[in-house]
């Protein structure tokens, strides 16, 4: 154990591999877990009765993953609205884009959502001050906006002061008519930092493009999700003139399906990154083995002496094995601490609620101990099998 302390730098360099490996595993697992948690929460906060429809087919073989033939327009949304629906209730549409906005001498880039229909209801959002868009507003070219509470704070200091003020988006003035109630953060996007404008205004004045990015509908009851989904599909297919037997040129998903897709993706990601962590642990382990060989060589005389004083092969084996395990566990602990710190940093950057699972921490310590055992056993065994006199004579 003394040699570890006296060769601090060498020991540190040796365990660097373990530190990095454990750090990445801890970070990945916990960031993954945090992201998954937040995604689950946010998808759940949409409402489990939500159905999302995007134009194009999901095609894994294409580069973007989606083949888009014919975009949606407001006509598609209207078709859904006008249909005397049995299973689905509200219908909404949304386009989004990051745009430069300005109030007096302050400018900031915000996500601007052009919304149509029952968007707020479908996404479980509420108004804190002022009012929501009316049906007429959605289709008008009115220059009005509902803003997230953080936007209001940023521009007006106090949320209450926002109503009636004019914010410029792409240089065009919009009057604030409402402020949204605060909502839980979603990964990589804060729903409290969004500016909502009517979809018509958005298309005509901000983007000059009449396509619709996403349509939402909700099922009247969660039990009839499948029927609602089928009904939406039928209405859209008929409206878009798709012959029976032909594939739909849009994709439809329920929140549950979205959730499981996201979980699948994050699962693959976590697995992939864990593999990288695993490789660095392997490299770290080999480093440990190497340094143990060096240590055993350097301390051959000590081994001989200890044997002369009564150490059994087993005593020597345990001594070196303990050293290897202490070093790797030390690395594991340092790596865990760094990993937890990194998780917090990532979480702060990505707007996540950080989750540190105790399981991941105990696993990290367990893995590092196991690495010490696995990679320490061979050098330690070599040390233990030395003949005392040969070890003592070693120069």
């Amino acid at each position, binding site marked *: 154990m*003394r040699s570890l302390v*006296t060769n601090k730098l060498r020991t540190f360099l040796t365990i660097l591999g373990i530190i990095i490996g454990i750090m990445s595993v801890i970070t990945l697992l916990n960031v993954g877990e945090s992201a998954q948690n937040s995604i689950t929460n946010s998808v759940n906060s949409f409402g489990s009765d939500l159905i999302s429809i995007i134009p194009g087919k999901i095609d894994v073989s294409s580069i973007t993953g989606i083949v888009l033939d014919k975009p949606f327009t407001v006509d598609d949304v209207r078709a859904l609205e006008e249909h005397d629906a049995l299973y689905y209730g509200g219908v909404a549409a949304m386009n989004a884009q990051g745009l430069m906005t300005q109030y007096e001498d302050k400018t900031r880039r915000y996500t601007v959502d052009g919304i149509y229909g029952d968007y707020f209801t479908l996404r479980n959002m509420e108004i804190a001050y002022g009012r929501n868009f009316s049906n007429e507003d959605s289709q008008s070219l009115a220059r009005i906006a509902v803003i997230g509470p953080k936007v209001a704070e940023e521009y007006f200091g106090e949320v209450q002061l926002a109503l009636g003020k004019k914010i410029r988006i792409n240089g065009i003035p919009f009057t604030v008519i409402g402020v949204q109630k605060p909502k839980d953060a979603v990964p990589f996007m804060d729903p409290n930092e969004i500016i909502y404008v009517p979809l018509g205004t958005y298309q005509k004045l901000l983007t000059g493009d009449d396509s619709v990015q996403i349509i939402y509908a909700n099922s009247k009851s969660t039990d009839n999700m499948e029927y609602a989904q089928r009904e939406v599909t039928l209405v859209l297919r008929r409206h878009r003139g798709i012959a029976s037997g032909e594939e739909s040129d849009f994709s439809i998903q329920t929140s549950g399906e979205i959730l499981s897709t996201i979980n699948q993706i994050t699962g693959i990601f976590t697995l992939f990154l864990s593999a990288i962590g695993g490789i660095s642990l392997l490299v770290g382990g080999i480093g440990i083995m190497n340094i143990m060989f060096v240590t055993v060589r350097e301390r051959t*005389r*000590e081994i001989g*002496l*200890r*044997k*002369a*004083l*009564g*150490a*059994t*092969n*087993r*005593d020597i084996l345990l001594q070196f094995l303990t050293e290897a395990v202490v070093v790797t566990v030390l690395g594991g602990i340092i790596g865990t601490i760094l990993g937890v710190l990194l998780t917090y940093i990532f979480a702060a950057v990505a707007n996540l609620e950080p989750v540190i699972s105790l399981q991941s921490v105990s696993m990290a310590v367990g893995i590092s101990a196991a690495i010490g055992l696995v990679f320490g056993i061979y050098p330690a065994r070599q040390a233990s099998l030395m*003949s*005392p*006199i040969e070890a*003592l004579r070693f120069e």
Partner: protein
Amino acid sequence: MAEPLIKLIDIRKTYKMGETEYQALKGVSLTVEKGDFLAIMGPSGSGKSTLMHILGCLDSPSSGEYFLESKEIGKLADKDLAKIRNEKIGFVFQAFNLLQRMTVLDNVLVPFTYSRIPRAEQMERANKALEKVGLESKKSNKTNQLSGGQIQRTAIARSLVMNPAIIFADEPTGNLDSKTSHEIMSILAKLNEQGNTIILVTHEDDIAAYAKRIVKLRDGEVVSDEKQKARTNMTTEKKEK
């Protein structure tokens, strides 16, 4: 008469170095009684160290039998051999072999690592051993803060703590000046008077003069084995021989 402490029967040791073989011991038979003080002498390369290592259970002979307290050493497994090295044998090396960067006391305590003696008794015995070699005042010193004589005295204290049946010293004074050598030998002689059995290797006649019996080796064979006159005191003894 009781069983001898040590009984060697026709011990041979052959070193193999690739193709060539070298016979370092060519049939050594020796008996040592409890309480003896034996000096092994002989020219360099005569096999003294080889014999000491076999006696100290650090090496095994190529053939022959070795009985220590009637136990046949050649038949023991590693665990039992380690126990004998720990409990029955104290070894003092020419090269001292202390653990670096540790205090004198910690070095003396090392053999206890491999025993089951309670901590309090360990400290008591270590302190007593340090007292015997006159190092009580230095017990917190690191080994690099000691003189050569103090280092060897630490090593002797370490060989004493387990109350071994026998102490082996391979040229314990080989790296020390003559004044310090005599200090070390006085300590060993005193330990022998207190009942410890001691076997030492030396080149020097005035060191061997402390022993009760001198065994001479040449080319791996015992060429003489003589009892010395009983000592009256250290000074007269030094002039003998």
